[in-house]
């Protein structure tokens, strides 16, 4: 540690929640120090209070319901909690800057990028108009936006997600703040973009020597960027220390459990499926989205989401479809289940072409191919009890309602939920539990194939590991075939026997997971693998006695 005063010093911070919340304090006794030139990662699962910490520092808590009850926040020795609102306004944006999770919502869609960057300088500096413009262009160059001059005039929706986040960073850094608070800045981005943004933050921060408080839920990102790590669990600081120590020798059982839950990058041993019967065969799938032009904007190009896609899925096998956003992987899952009509091609299940079925035949065929959705809250009808949700499919297909409900209760046991869950509504469950219900609903139909579209992306890591394990167990026990769509290669490595790597609607590489991980052939696959955050770090094997 150097002799400078810390940029940020938090002592015994306690944030009170309104009455009726699940706990009295969102944060209870947080101590944290950020030194100049240091990146401190605040790690925790959803609901751990990490984002409220950022709110408290910026004095942007939703008061009076949520307010600081106790403790001190000192910024370069100055107590932020005691400052007047006017003084605080001058500090915000000028000396403390924040980078948000979702750059699309953090930027004003009505104003051009240049205008918004210019505004920061206009509010906090005395610079003239042309000086400001020069400065903005310089900042855009620093964050490596291609063609800063045209980006200056672009509106937020006209540039890509990664570039929007670069603009946010440019905005945060334009006044050379002493402290940067980054609240999950890369969570909404693709892996390859994520890596670039992380490198950019690291590089710019080293140049300016600012302190960074980096809030994240992802230990991979921590391994990539952190100097120091603080782990939060339900508002309490359970462990804090240098990154190397926390990552490789975690002391607290919660940290150990979190790290143990991170999917390792070692794919399963290849299994041989050449003898197994084919349960699903897709041939020559093409899907083009006709873009609607506005009244004056003229015709826009149609977007090819999937072009000429073919694959086979054998019994008991798990085929992973991986790719970044816009690669067409979700479109594949929707075409295969015919929630979306394909332009051409065929999907053969049980000897019948699903895409050529009449509506009546299609309803009958649906029992063979079921789906688990990404967002378990959105995919369960909020007005139905769990029992009715699970029994719905079998009832539609002619099973006696009483018997179907009985089977629903058995399925709840199969997905490790208590039978008492049957009479509850979806909002009474946690995210992981809801996804279990979604899985039970798919299983109720006794399908041959389950299509899982990012089934664990909305879940915390520890829950993710449990749901993945459940899916794997069920697959082996019930001899199911899985079509597993994901953007997360770590998750794919857990479950998938074979992989299809997609880019811009086309398959760039396909093969056994272990072989692709060991020896990727296509440059895009290589880039994807290289971009996995924390790929250089192997989580330590922790004896399971703690958890």
């Amino acid at each position, binding site marked *: 540690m150097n002799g400078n005063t810390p940029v940020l010093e938090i002592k015994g911070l306690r944030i009170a929640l309104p009455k009726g919340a699940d706990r009295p304090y969102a944060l209870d006794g947080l101590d944290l120090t950020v030194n100049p030139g240091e990146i401190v990662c605040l790690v925790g699962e959803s609901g751990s209070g990490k984002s409220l910490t950022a709110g408290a520092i910026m004095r942007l808590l939703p008061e009076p319901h949520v307010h600081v009850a106790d403790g001190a926040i000192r910024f370069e020795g100055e107590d932020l909690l005691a400052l007047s609102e006017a003084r605080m306004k001058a500090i915000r944006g000028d000396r403390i800057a924040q980078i948000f999770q979702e750059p699309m919502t953090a930027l004003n869609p009505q104003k051009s990028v240049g205008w918004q960057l210019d505004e920061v300088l206009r509010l906090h500096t005395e610079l003239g108009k042309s000086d400001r413009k020069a400065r903005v262009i310089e900042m855009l160059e620093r964050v490596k936006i291609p063609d800063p001059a045209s980006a200056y005039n672009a509106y937020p929706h006209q540039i890509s997600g990664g570039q929007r986040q670069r603009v946010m960073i440019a905005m945060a850094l334009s006044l050379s703040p002493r402290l940067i608070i980054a609240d999950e800045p890369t969570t909404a981005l693709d892996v390859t973009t994520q890596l670039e943004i992380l490198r950019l933050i690291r590089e710019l921060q080293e140049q300016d020597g600012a302190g960074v408080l980096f809030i994240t839920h992802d230990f991979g990102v921590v391994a990539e960027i952190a100097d120091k790590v603080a782990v939060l669990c339900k508002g309490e600081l359970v462990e804090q220390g240098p990154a190397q120590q926390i990552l490789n020798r975690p002391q607290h059982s919660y940290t150990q459990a979190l790290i143990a839950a991170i999917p390792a990058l070692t794919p399963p041993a290849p299994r041989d499926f050449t003898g197994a019967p084919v349960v699903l065969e897709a041939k020559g799938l093409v899907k083009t989205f006709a873009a609607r032009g506005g009244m004056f904007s003229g015709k826009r190009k149609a977007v090819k989401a999937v072009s000429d896609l073919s694959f086979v899925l054998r019994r008991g096998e798990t085929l992973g479809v991986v790719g970044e956003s816009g690669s067409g992987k979700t479109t594949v899952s929707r075409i295969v289940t015919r929630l979306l009509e394909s332009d051409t091609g065929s999907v053969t299940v049980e000897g019948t072409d699903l895409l050529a079925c009449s509506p009546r035949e299609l309803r009958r065929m649906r029992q063979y191919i079921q789906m688990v959705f990404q967002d378990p809250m959105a995919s369960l009808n909020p007005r139905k009890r769990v029992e009715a949700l699970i029994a719905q499919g079998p009832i539609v297909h002619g099973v006696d309602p009483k018997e179907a409900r009985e089977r629903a209760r058995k399925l709840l046991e199969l997905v490790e939920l208590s039978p008492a869950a049957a009479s509850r509504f979806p909002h*009474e469950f946690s995210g992981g539990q809801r996804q279990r219900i979604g899985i039970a609903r798919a299983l109720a139909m006794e399908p041959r194939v389950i299509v899982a579209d990012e089934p664990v992306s909305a879940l915390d890591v520890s829950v993710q590991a449990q749901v993945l394990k459940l899916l794997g167990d069920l697959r082996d026990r019930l001899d199911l075939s899985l079509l597993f769509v994901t953007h997360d290669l770590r998750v794919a490595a857990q479950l998938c026997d074979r992989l299809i790597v997609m880019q811009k609607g086309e398959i760039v590489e396909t093969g056994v997971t272990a072989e692709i991980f060991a020896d990727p052939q296509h440059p895009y696959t290589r880039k994807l693998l290289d971009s996995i955050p924390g790929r250089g770090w192997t989580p330590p094997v922790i004896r399971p006695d703690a*958890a």
Partner: protein
Amino acid sequence: MTLLTTELPKPEPHRAVLLWRRFARNRAALLGLVIFVVVLIMAATAGLIEPTDPLRRAGVPLTKPFVDWATPLGTDQLGRDILASLFYGARISLLVGVLATLLSIGIGVVIGAVSGYFGGWIDDVLMRTTEAFQTIPNFVLLLALVAILGSSIEYITVAIAIVSWTAPARMVRAEFMSLRGREFVDAARNLGVSNTAIIFREILPNALPPIVVYASVIMALSILLESALAFLGLGDPNHASWGNMIGQGRAVLRSDWYCAAIPGTAIILTVLSFSLLGEGLNDALNPRQKK
């Protein structure tokens, strides 16, 4: 510390209990409920407390209120008991209100749901039809319908429903358009559920809360429309309704104002109770809309 997440949280209290708690938090809504219950009791006991025909002559015409205890609220120019008319009028007003609301919401839900769920040309046809109705002012259309159908109480109810289904139809359509893209609808489709079942069993229950709230508005409007018709002398003369009473009281407004004022107050209070109830229902059914 365990991280296994299969343990369930404590069960929530029953849905009805939750709804009542949220409803009761709104004091004005409670007042609305009280008035509504009073009107209901009036309608239910119309034959019991005043066991006579409200259209029969009960005393000296134009007796002032609180003078003769046989007719506590006085009599109108034909000697009819105002209190009895008030009780029987509550029955008619509520009947017209409830039936017209059910009819108009029914039409609105079916048209809005089909239009919003299927979209495309079906939506175009249905919405242009709806707009055709919306371009004609409500009351003018109502007058025209009553003129054609005749002014018996059944036809008046149907006519009121015909002029007031357009707003709920548009509302249901908007709800359906936003709900049909949700994943749970895809999930139901993926189970092989038919379109009809998706519309009525999956989406409609989720679209209901705003419709229920809006029903209270339509209810109040129906009562007002019926009164307005009666005021113009187009009401059903064979039934004592509040509107009829005001319509007849109008003739003696300058000398015996109470003939019109008493039923007028009843209408104001009833309509007020509906709008307060609607507000309370909104709090109970859409708790996240506020704040």
